[in-house]
């Protein structure tokens, strides 16, 4: 027996009882201190932290362990370790993050993130992650858009997989309870406090209730509400919707990041992500005339730090100190808008994208070594050899900057006992997230959320318990699609909602289109209520989609209403009718709340950044 198994046997597995709550359904209940909803990078990191803090912890996930969307993160984990450029430090990382988010970020979160990311990366290494190495044997770091120095710890172009596998193996080693293929449909409350989660097993369709004073939402994003997206089916905004429903609030929901480079062909993989590392490794964007067009799209905001000739841009890869960055490595919102403009101006590729060219820039051997998954992805899915031909790319819905409004230090939402981390939480990335900052976000705040949730749970003198009426209500809501005779097809409603969101609340927005979207969303709500499901409850995807639509509709409305409210363009929110960035709007966040099913928006002033941090923005950026 090893030391780790000793720790495992000490782990409590939570009392289990199977109770019947009436004739129409049976369900099981278990007791925990902390329940983590979601098993991506932030959920696993939070569960590990909560477990290590002594809390009886459970992880619930809609998928199998290790399949979460984190595996899709390719480029790397941003952390100012200074392994490649000793000039790098947390202050520079903090400044890059704030500038990338157009200063709308929660400064305290950005600060904590920049300060703690290196320790979290090293911790992964101690748990078995194998990052690429520098010549001195340290963790290698690569360049990415918006980061002044090469800063992303990476493993080829499959860094997210490395992170999730490392955390998964750690969680399994610690013996943390895992409930796989379980969907949470309700947060349970006792008075103001969180009392647990209610949901169903996908495998059997039977219900499962976890009683816990603290719940951490680590459910990821909302990308599945958009037709062209790099996100998987899981990204239906469950955490966002659950938090709203439980009385929490969302922040920055108008900011949706469209990743500049998604695949466009073949149709079946439209939206699939092409990592920013292609550009970090030297790839450039060209239009149908062969022109490297990004030089035409350098905004004043980034003029001082961006190369204005191809020669300077090309020298930069070897000498960051004496040259400025290539414009291909501007933050994602800038590049996505530029690509969008080129395509609209008729200078796009045959399938409606632009060209991303690495073939003429790097040797085939380098491409195989540095971008193996990309080579593989194009070869097998599009029959394109990226060492010989350029890729066709266009923007794809990728990430929502908005999420549950949380306290910067503890990740606590406004509902006592509720926490949110990762993409499900908001504030950290402001109006636009820099590449590489999401993976570091997951582990920095995952750890904090786990620790604080455990501490909160330990401090409760009485265990909150949900009323049986609330549970009955949750059961009824979950079974409703089986009893409806409305005849609506869940898949059809989902697909049409995705079309509306992508076309009307997409990368470029106007007030009129967003109004139309809101009207459509109201109609979808009516149709969603009439969805009818075939078959039984055991592993029935039709039923699962029918329930997921509710979350998708809630977050879609939140995005649309917030976007309509913000009358300016900034980061991941671009309006044709308000194309300029307005400094007045730079002082407020939009907060989304829900009362009796109705969504409301309010303005909230940004927290004031202290002077010592403000002074970081005064020195001229290079």
């Amino acid at each position, binding site marked *: 027996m090893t030391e780790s198994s000793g720790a495992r046997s000490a782990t409590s597995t939570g009392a289990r009882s*199977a109770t019947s709550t009436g004739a129409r*359904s049976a369900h099981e209940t278990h007791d925990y201190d902390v329940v983590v909803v979601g098993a991506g990078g932030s959920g696993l990191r939070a569960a590990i932290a909560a477990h290590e803090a002594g809390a009886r912890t459970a992880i619930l996930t809609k998928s199998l362990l290790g399949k979460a969307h984190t595996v899709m993160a390719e480029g790397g984990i941003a952390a100012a370790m200074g392994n490649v450029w000793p000039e790098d430090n947390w202050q520079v990382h903090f400044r890059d993050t704030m500038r990338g988010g157009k200063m709308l970020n929660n400064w305290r979160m950005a600060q904590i993130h920049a300060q703690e990311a290196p320790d979290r990366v090293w911790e992964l290494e101690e748990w078995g992650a194998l990052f690429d190495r520098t010549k001195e044997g340290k963790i290698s770091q690569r360049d990415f858009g918006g980061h002044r120095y090469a800063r992303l710890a990476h493993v080829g172009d499959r860094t997210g997989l490395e992170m999730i596998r490392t955390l998964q193996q750690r969680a399994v080693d610690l013996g943390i309870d895992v409930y796989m293929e379980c969907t949470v449909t309700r947060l349970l409350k006792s008075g103001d406090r969180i009392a647990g989660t209610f949901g169903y097993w996908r495998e059997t369709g039977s219900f499962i209730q976890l009683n816990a004073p603290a719940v951490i939402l680590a459910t990821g994003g909302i990308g599945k509400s958009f037709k062209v997206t790099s996100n998987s089916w899981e990204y239906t905004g469950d955490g966002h919707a659950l938090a709203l429903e439980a009385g929490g609030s969302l922040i920055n929901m108008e900011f949706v990041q469209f990743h500049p480079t998604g695949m466009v062909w073949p149709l079946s993989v439209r939206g699939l992500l092409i990592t920013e590392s292609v550009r970090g490794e030297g790839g450039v964007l060209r239009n149908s005339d062969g022109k490297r067009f990004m030089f035409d799209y350098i905004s004043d905001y980034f003029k001082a730090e961006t190369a204005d000739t191809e020669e300077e841009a090309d020298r930069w890869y070897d000498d960051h100190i004496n040259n400025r960055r290539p414009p291909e490595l501007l933050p994602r919102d800038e590049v996505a808008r530029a690509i969008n403009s080129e395509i609209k101006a008729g200078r796009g590729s045959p399938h409606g994208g632009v060209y991303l060219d690495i073939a003429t820039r790097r040797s085939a051997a380098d491409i195989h070594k540095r971008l193996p998954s990309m080579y593989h992805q194009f070869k097998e899915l599009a029959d394109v050899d990226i060492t010989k031909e350029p890729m066709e790319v266009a923007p794809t819905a990728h990430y929502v900057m908005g999420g549950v409004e949380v306290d910067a230090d503890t990740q606590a939402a406004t509902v006592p006992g509720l926490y949110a981390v990762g993409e499900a939480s908001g504030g950290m990335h402001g109006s636009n997230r820099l590449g590489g900052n999401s993976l570091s976000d997951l582990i920095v705040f995952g750890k904090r959320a786990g620790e604080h949730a455990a501490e909160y749970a330990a401090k409760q003198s009485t265990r909150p318990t949900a009323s049986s009426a609330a549970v009955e209500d949750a059961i009824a809501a979950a079974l409703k699609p089986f009893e409806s005779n409305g005849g609506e097809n869940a898949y059809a409603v989902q697909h049409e909602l995705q079309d509306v969101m992508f076309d009307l609340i997409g990368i470029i927005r106007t007030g009129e289109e967003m109004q139309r979207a809101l009207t459509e969303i109201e109609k979808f709500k009516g149709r969603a209520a009439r969805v009818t499901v075939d078959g039984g*409850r055991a592993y029935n995807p039709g039923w699962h989609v029918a329930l997921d639509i509710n979350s998708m509709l809630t977050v879609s409305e939140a995005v649309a209403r917030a976007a309509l409210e913000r009358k300016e363009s900034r980061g991941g929110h671009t309006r044709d009718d308000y194309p300029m960035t307005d400094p007045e709007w730079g002082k407020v966040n939009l907060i989304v709340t829900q009362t009796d099913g109705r969504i409301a928006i309010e303005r909230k002033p940004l927290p004031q950044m202290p002077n010592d941090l403000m002074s970081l923005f005064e020195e001229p950026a290079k």
Partner: protein
Amino acid sequence: MATQSATQETRPTARAAITARHLRTDRWWFDPLLTFIVFGAFVIYGTWAAFDHSLVYTHVAGNPTPHRWFYAKPYLSPFYSPCVADGCPTDINWASADIWHWLSPALYILILPLGFRATCYYYRRAYYRAYWLSPPACAVAEPHKKYTGETRFPLLAQNLHRYFWYGSAVLGGILTYDAVVSFIYTNSSGYHFFIGVGSFVLVINAILILGYTFGCHSCRHITAGRLNHFSKHPIRYRWWTLVSKLNHWHRQWAWASLVWIALADLYIRLVSNGTITDYHHIF
């Protein structure tokens, strides 16, 4: 509508009820069949060749001269190298050991290469599939009721592969020597440079044998595979890199060297008994 009816201890254990042994629609049987035929042919030919070390006669200056069938001056069949027993032609006889002269020398020489190939990680794959049908092909059910893999005697002896490798590496050196001496013709006037079709047959044979032997998985392990710090052993790491490259094509080396060694033996026998003429030049 629903009540509790199962506990965690009763997980579903039944597989999908599919009775077909496989649902493959491609020619999955082709590879194992080809392996079966070529190996079978080699074994039959090799057994015959190993036993038949009889005398044949060629006419030197009009006189029928007896010599061993596996030898056609200056070519020695690789099945009979090194020629160490009584009965070997005198000018290639290493050690004229007066033992077992009734036994073909090939029989004890071949123990090494046969053992080497029988325990080879590639050949194991090939014959387990083609002869044991364990499995005949991927996702095609095997016919056996029980399976214990390589956990028991005699298959546990597959672990001796590296010892056969040590021996075969020496043998590879000897076959290389044979290839070199096939360029030397000795007669009463001394040593002459010689070049013939058979010389090339033996050179190719030596290259294939060496390529197969030094691409061996055990060799890869011994050079540096067993180390966890390549960076501390740069020379061994370079060797490992080279062996790894050969190892990548181990299957191809295995087949090519197997077929070629039989062809080399056959060629030398046909020259030896005068069926065909070896084109050559003596300088």
